[in-house]
């Protein structure tokens, strides 16, 4: 299999399988980090000092250290240090470990974006709700929330597009995502070896996917443009 045209279908299939795993990690991270981020945000804004200082310390540690190290710690620490390999050795175990590291890491970033969004809504909005006799709950859900969402769309889209590419860090624990799949053709797989173009070609997948996300986010922004905050 020497010609590019012979190699391409094989590589394309393998990269698709890898990209599916990439997408799975991406989706699970969002599903976990978006709500967890809100909890962390409320924790860091809490008027109960011990809670807010603990939460802020966690956010500092998570944002202040490399995601790659966090992945390695989550994956290897239980097995190598505690001698209980809770994740198991297979792809399933690697996926769970990667998901936990990604969700925690991204939730911390999201929480700060949320905090900015909530604090950016003018205090007068809350007071206007109060003098009309609305409850705190009604004020948050009927007045503050949508204004906060509108404010956080641009920074969130930024962070989410970064996440698309950060999933490649899971390669470090041998999660079989698209980088792993592309690299396999360097050492040899399915009769193809010594080829670096499949690894380079993975960039096209990221590029297309982040392009689609960019379009979706600008649609959402347009949808929310009927009002100004």
């Amino acid at each position, binding site marked *: 299999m020497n010609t590019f045209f012979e190699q391409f279908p094989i590589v394309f299939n393998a990269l698709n399988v890898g990209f599916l795993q990439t997408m799975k990690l991406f989706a699970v991270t969002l599903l976990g980090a978006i709500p967890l981020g809100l909890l962390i945000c409320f924790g860091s804004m809490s008027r109960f000092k011990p809670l807010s200082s603990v939460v802020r310390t966690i956010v500092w540690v998570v944002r202040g250290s490399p995601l790659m190290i966090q992945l390695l710690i989550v994956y290897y620490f239980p097995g190598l240090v505690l001698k209980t390999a809770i994740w198991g050795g297979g792809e399933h175990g690697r996926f769970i470990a990667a998901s936990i590291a990604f969700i925690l890491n991204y939730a911390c970033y999201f929480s700060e974006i949320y905090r900015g969004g909530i604090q950016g809504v003018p205090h*007068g909005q809350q007071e*206007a709700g109060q*003098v009309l*006799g*609305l*409850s*705190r709950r009604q004020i948050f859900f009927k007045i503050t929330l949508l204004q906060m969402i509108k404010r956080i769309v641009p920074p969130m889209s930024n962070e989410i597009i970064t996440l698309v590419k950060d999933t490649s860090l899971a390669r470090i624990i041998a999660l079989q995502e698209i980088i792993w799949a592309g690299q396999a053709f360097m050492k040899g797989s399915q009769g193809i070896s010594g080829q670096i173009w499949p690894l380079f070609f993975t960039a096209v997948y990221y590029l297309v996917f982040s392009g689609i996300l960019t379009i979706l986010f600008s649609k959402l922004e347009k949808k929310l443009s*009927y*009002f*100004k905050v």
Partner: protein
Amino acid sequence: MALLRVEDIRKKFGKNEVLKGISFSLEKGEVLAIIGSSGSGKTTLLRCLNFLETPEQGRIFVGDEELFDGEANEKMSDEQIRVKRLHFGLVFQNFNLFPQYNILQNVTLAPSLLKIDTPQNIEAHARELIEKVGLTEKAAQYPCELSGGQQQRVAIARALAMRPDILCFDEPTSALDPELTGEVLKAIKGLKSGDSTMIVVTHEMEFAKNVADRVIFMADGVIEEEGTPADVFDHPKSEKTRAFLQNSLENF
């Protein structure tokens, strides 16, 4: 019997005493203008009436109901405060309309959430109020599409939708371009014929003079002078009032 009775309200921010014992009363249908220089405590007084600030001392009555007693030991719950503040409406200096709702929705939001009437009646009442402030054709537009003066008129309609006993205005024209203040003042004046009871904190001396039934001049957290517009503007007794009016009405 007075509709509103305020007795010896005192409020501090840290060590700074902003209200040093304010007492006054207001009859139903009266328009009270509160004037005074910045930092004299006018806005804080309105915010105390609307439970946005809690005074350290004093009592507030509406009719024969005691709304607030600084001597009371237990703190009022959010729920209690919510019921009590419905006696008052407040129009803010910078409108604070809800940007994601159109004009009609801004007016109906609170009555609908608090279910004070049937949805049909709430909407009918809201449309009536919007017509009263002259914005019928803007009902489906959003706040960002309106001028400042129009936004402030919506804010007035929104406050009236909860049918408050007393409507308070906190410098309603201070955030407006000079050519827009007239329409807002006219709208407020228009309410007077509808015998609403109003408290207007204002820097518009002409308005206070011509529309108010009674004027209070505040300085340094106390009521320095109180009376009919003729008393306060034409025959001020206090030296501070005289100085303030002279500076305010000075012709260039």
